């Protein structure tokens, strides 16, 4: 037998599904265009439904609001799903961004962009999301700093960042990092300079026609 969900319950369910943080019943009532009391009653009904139907998530009351979260029974499976590190091949942009971070860490996003000559925003976001890099405070200018994580070391089979392969034609020295940083920034600026004067490169069809 099928129990149709009441219209208000349905709306509340959708709203809670979208909200990662607890939402107050007042806010829910405003959004759903319903009375406060109706909303509280509907939430109560939803909660009982979820329990009775043994759904995969539960409705919880937290910090003065309501929030959906997975049922504890599902957690082992969830751990298996989320624990599997996602490791598709790195795109060139991701490899460059990650390389800059691992060799210069901690390093700020503007610095990465300056070295690459293009924004590193989406590559950095993906690396963050996959857990291979993490934020490491802020620079004196307020920019977010990045460093690599333990997961990064495992995925690259490294014991520590010190085990990184040597860069060809680059002498490791006490000033290694500062010099590497300087040289990368110089090369990045040079590339940016080139980019600025060769807009014609964007039109290879001229050359081909």
């Amino acid at each position, binding site marked *: 037998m099928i129990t149709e969900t009441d219209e208000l319950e349905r709306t509340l369910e959708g709203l809670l*599904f*979208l*909200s*990662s943080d607890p939402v107050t019943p007042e806010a829910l009532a405003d959004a759903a265009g319903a009375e406060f009391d109706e909303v509280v009653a509907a939430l109560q009904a939803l909660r009982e439904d979820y329990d009775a139907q043994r759904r995969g998530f539960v409705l919880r009351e937290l910090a003065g609001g309501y929030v959906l*979260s*997975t049922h504890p029974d599902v*957690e082992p499976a*969830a*751990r298996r799903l*989320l*624990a*599997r*590190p996602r*490791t598709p091949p*790195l795109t*060139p942009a991701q*490899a*460059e961004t*990650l*390389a*800059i971070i*691992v*060799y210069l860490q901690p390093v700020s996003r503007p610095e990465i962009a300056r*070295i*690459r000559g293009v924004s590193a925003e989406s590559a950095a976001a993906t690396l963050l999301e996959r*857990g291979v890099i993490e934020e490491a405070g802020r620079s004196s200018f307020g920019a977010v700093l990045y460093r690599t994580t*333990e*997961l990064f070391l*495992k*995925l*690259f*089979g490294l014991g520590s960042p010190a*085990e*990184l*392969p*040597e*860069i*060809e*034609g*680059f002498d490791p020295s006490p000033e290694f990092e500062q010099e*590497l940083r300087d*040289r*990368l920034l*110089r*090369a*990045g600026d*040079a*590339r940016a*300079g*080139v980019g600025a*004067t*060769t807009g*014609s*490169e964007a039109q*290879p*069809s*001229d*050359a*081909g*026609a």
Partner: protein
Amino acid sequence: LTLILREEVDLLEVDLADVVITYIDHLERRGELDLEAATEFLVLIAALLELKSRLLLPGEEIEEVGLDPGEAAEELLVRLLDAHRYRAAAAHLQTLLEDESGHRFRSAPPPAHLRKARLHDAHAVYAPAVLARAIGGLLQLPPKVDLNHVTIHKVTVAERLAHLRRLLRRGVFTFSEAVAQADRVTVAVTLYALLELHKQGEATWTQDTPFAEIEIAATGGMTTVTRLTA
């Protein structure tokens, strides 16, 4: 669109910039400047520009390059149809997006305690050399960039002409071969030299599709080689 096509003048004699401005003025005077028409017009003008630039190059050899007016029109048609096709596809995408506007996705990150187990399942799947290569690539200074920007470029057309003629004597070659490892200025000058060779009737080239490799071959008239060495 029609206005341009009706212009019964040689493409070579048209100042396209004038045409564009006159046309836009005309539309504005009539209060008809709608985006649809303007876009179509721009596609057409871009195609005309490309045709014109090609017409300018080989002098009298218009027929040889296959640009009699009929074929030129055919090429324009292909262009316009292509533009129309993708504009229709774009409209379809807009519809899809609109149909989806009622579907929202959760954007909450999974709770941290469920992600903690990750490390146990991590295996070494990436080679560290990837990182060394990436950083090595970033360390490279663009070739010769300082010289080219500070001083006048040192590549001359004469040098590149001589270079191309040397290659021609050996047979057919591609443009990429001719400019292997060359910097951008050299590539540009080489292209100019190639156009010069074509004008002199010393070389022809073929290119299957735009952006494809250009194959260059001698026309056979090697006697002209000595004529131009400036």
